[in-house]
């Protein structure tokens, strides 16, 4: 009985907090269907008095949403593949291979986290330009691909794998590459799923770097296009909201797909300790 009351109170609180968190999202979605004249009406209405798809139509017709979506998807997918590839190998190497200076390398990796992008912007721009990557999608894919955060995540996870297992595989005659592909990767899947979600989020929402690295409107990503609705004095709310909703949908989908890996990750790490 006491337990039921406790649950009831708990769920009530959870529902209230949940509604609180969800409200801004719902508000954006509902507002994106309101005609411009109703956007700021007082008292505010949650459900639009008159539905309109004008903002969505103008997002596709005037703002070239399709092109930006394509660019963003390309950047996100390619960058995530590269990120996973590099970070997994680096993280595993730093966790399981003993060599001189491995700690130093890790510290160097992590120390790059201490320097904000703003300070690195101009040197990075110069490197990018001299490599001929300026104003190409590669220019926003490659520089942020090897994230120190990713290397660190993978390393910490791989550390928890027992050395004996790797040695046993070696005794069975497996080569380094085979151990990595057949043994390690399946075991660290949960952290790879986490890293995938992070990487997709980072690249999808990246703003400052694409702003610097891209100067051709046809190569703009969604985030760049969204920001262009904001002028000095005024914000073009209608199309901005519609495009924001369209930008959110793929991210939410990805999260829903990878959700079970998240839960799996928590369960696995729970059993290990």
């Amino acid at each position, binding site marked *: 009985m006491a337990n039921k009351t406790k649950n009831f109170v708990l769920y009530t609180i959870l529902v209230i907090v949940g509604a609180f968190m969800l409200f801004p999202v719902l508000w954006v979605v509902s507002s994106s269907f309101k005609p411009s004249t109703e956007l*700021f009406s007082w008292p505010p209405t949650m459900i639009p008095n008159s539905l309109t798809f004008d903002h969505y139509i103008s997002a596709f017709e005037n703002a070239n949403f399709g092109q930006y979506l394509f660019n963003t998807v390309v950047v996100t997918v390619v960058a995530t593949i590269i990120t996973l590839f590099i970070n997994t190998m680096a993280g595993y190497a730093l966790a399981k291979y003993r060599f001189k200076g491995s700690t130093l390398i890790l510290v160097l990796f992590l120390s790059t986290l201490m320097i904000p992008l703003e300070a690195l912007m101009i040197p990075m721009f110069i490197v990018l330009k001299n490599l001929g990557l300026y104003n*190409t999608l590669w220019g926003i894919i490659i520089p942020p691909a090897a994230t120190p955060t990713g290397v660190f995540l993978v390393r910490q996870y791989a550390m928890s794998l027992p050395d004996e297992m790797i040695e046993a595989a070696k005794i069975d005659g497996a080569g380094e590459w085979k151990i990595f592909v057949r043994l390690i990767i399946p075991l660290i899947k949960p952290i790879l799923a986490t890293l995938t979600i992070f990487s997709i989020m980072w690249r999808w929402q990246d703003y400052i770097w694409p702003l610097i690295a891209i*100067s051709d409107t046809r190569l703009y990503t969604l985030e760049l296009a969204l920001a*262009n609705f904001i002028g000095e004095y005024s914000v073009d709310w209608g199309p901005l909201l519609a495009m924001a909703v369209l930008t959110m949908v793929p991210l939410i989908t990805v999260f829903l797909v990878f959700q079970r890996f998240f839960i799996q990750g928590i369960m696995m790490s729970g059993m290990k300790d």
Partner: protein
Amino acid sequence: MKLRNKWFGALLLVALVLSACSDGNTDSGDGNVEETGEAKVTLDVIWFSDGDEGEVFKEITEEYKKEHPNVEFNIIDTPYSDVNDRIRTRVSGGDAPDLARVSNPGMISDALLELDDYFDSKETFLEQLSPSARPWAQVGDKFVAVPTDMTAHGLFYNKAYFEQAGVEVPSSPDDLWDWDEFANAIEKVKENSDARMGLAYDMSPSRYSTLIYQNGGTIFSEDGTQLTINEPEAVGALEYFKELHDREIIPKSIWLGGENPNSMFRSAQAAMHLSGNWNLQNYSENAGFEWGVTYLPEEVRRSSVAGGKQMVAFKDSEHTDEAAEFLQYFISKDVNEKYVKESLFLSPRNDVQDVQYEINSEAMEIFQNELSVTPEATANDWSNFEYMPEVEKQLTENVQKTLNGDMSPQEAMDDIVESTDMGSE
């Protein structure tokens, strides 16, 4: 075998995406030679928009291309707040753009192309401009920017609320409110109509400074080397501004809470909005009620504050000649007239003062009138690129502290003078 298939699939996917990536950027180069033998030039233009001016600019570049088939434009739309970042990175990174639309050439003056050699002479160019536009063309005495469009402050009002309360707004420059009448009129409307708030007053040091000028004051001395913001006229402006807040004519939530005055007026909550002509387009499209524009009040003198945008070229750009040539075209009489007319701006040119706007023409006439009576001191102050950015920041903070009751108006203004290093001591 199974494994190999998987890897093959992944590789194929990567290859596909890679080829898609490189498709997107094969045709952005310049420097191709046309059949005529004239070298093709692509001008990189960093641009920002508030309304339709981006579209109008695009049309103008299309026209220009007909006369100059060797010139292409790459218009780089940029959010206003990131324009300077983008310019700076490109200039420092050795890839200066060719042209940019800016609101403050002083921030990037060392990167700009001096225009003396490209225009007949600096003096003849400046003479074509209205007095309030002139200071924006120069940083120090270097001619580095071409003023393209001007803005002025004015008053938007909700017609229904003024009718309900039986209050009339000034209908001609001969019959203006003074400050007391202005405050009383709004108070009356607020109390006798459905308006929830009186005057929405933009949280902006520029809009605030309108009061300083109306009260006969200035921010800097005429030569720009001394602050005059703590003299009685400017302090009086702050006293009046505080009174408007204390009487709840201006809702405190704007200056002290960061609420958006634009949406207050647009949602028919506020009876009036002190802002500028850039809102015309927004309200025409998005306000679902009858509104009008009227004259600012006159205290010691009449004054609005001129804002403006300029176009600049860069000395490190590879196409300085072409960029400067386009600047001359863009500011020429007919082109400028088309540009300001279709974007609902005021013109910086003396000979483009009687523009026949297709929409909001009455309102634009009022803004034009406000700009014409605005003393040159306002432009002098606001184009003081060396000290204004610092003063501007402190002005907002200290006005807020005064409205909060943390400082008296005199203390707030003295504090700005004391903490600004004008290099005189």
